[in-house]
Every structure is written in C-alpha cells, then in structure tokens.
C-alpha cells in the first residue's frame, strides 16, 4: 500500500515544489502543490505536470489523486 509520504516523495522527485502537502488513505490521495513551473500555465497544464512527475505510478499504484495546484503568484494571492 502506498502512503501519503511516498506520494509526496514521488511528486517531489519529478517536480520542484515550493509547497507540497499530501494526505490520503492508501487508495485516494489529496494534494496541495505550489510550484514555480506552474506559472503562466492553465489548470490542465499544471495537473499534467504533476501526472508527468508521477508517470507510470499514476496508472499502477495510485488509484485516485485529487489535487489543487498553484503557481507561487496564485498561492500568494489566495
């Protein structure tokens, strides 16, 4: 079973994050992610960057990941 800490590490390994919180029960996870790479990107592009960081794990290990993504500017203006 995958832990929220592992999901956190998987994301961090593929995407430089300013802020990264992951919670979950082993099947469903929720993440709040702030990354400079998100600046100027659409929501779809931001989520695609996270999915790209997770790669095959998203298909094999992680059943569901619900996420909120922010660029540093969006995070500051929240």
């Amino acid at each position, binding site marked *: 079973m995958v832990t929220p800490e592992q999901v956190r590490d998987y994301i961090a390994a593929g995407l430089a994050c300013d802020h990264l919180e992951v919670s979950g029960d082993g099947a469903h996870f929720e993440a709040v992610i702030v990354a400079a790479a998100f600046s100027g990107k659409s929501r779809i592009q931001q989520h695609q960057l996270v*999915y790209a960081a997770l790669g095959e794990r998203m*298909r094999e290990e992680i059943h569901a990941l*619900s996420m909120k993504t922010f660029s540093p500017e969006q995070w500051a203006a929240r």
Partner: protein
Amino acid sequence: MSQNIHDVIRQQVTENPIVLYMKGSAQFPQCGFSARAVQILKACEAKSVMTVDVLQDPAIRQGIKEFSNWPTIPQLYIKGEFIGGSDIMTEMFQSGELQPLVAAAS
C-alpha cells in the same frame, strides 16, 4: 477497416456539444469522481450531455487517456475542447467559470 480509436473520440467530442467520459452511467455512476462530475453538470443545468461509460469499452478507456494526455477518468469536453477532470470541474464550478461554458453549449 477498423477506425482509429482517436478518430472515434475526435468525432464524439466534435459532434456533441458536451461529452463526459466517465465510469458508469449518469444514472448509476461507478466511481465517486464520476458521480461528482455528473452532479456538477446537473447543477450547471446542462442539457444534451453525452456520457460515455469507459467501463463498457476498454479501447475508449485507454484511448481517451492518450487523446487528452490525462491519466484519469472522468474527463469533460465542451465544444471539442478538453476542460479537465473532476478537480478542475469542481474549481471552475465554484469560481463560476464553468456555468457560462455549459450554458453556451446547451
């Protein structure tokens, strides 16, 4: 000659104003995220929504993930444009961005 699955999907999303790829049907969603997507479209008073149950068709289930470069279901298309999955639908509904898109397509 078998039609390429991406051509099938392209035809679905261009010939129908609102298409939701989901697990199960609108009446009986088979996943909480798909159920939420259906509820959001109802709350937007969407009409003429075509739902595609990916559990009924493995080729579509795999094909839509490649077509959108998006690994999860549900996926919403409006007027041929990929809008997002259930998180993005939720955010756009809460911010009021989704309702006019749906209204313009209904």
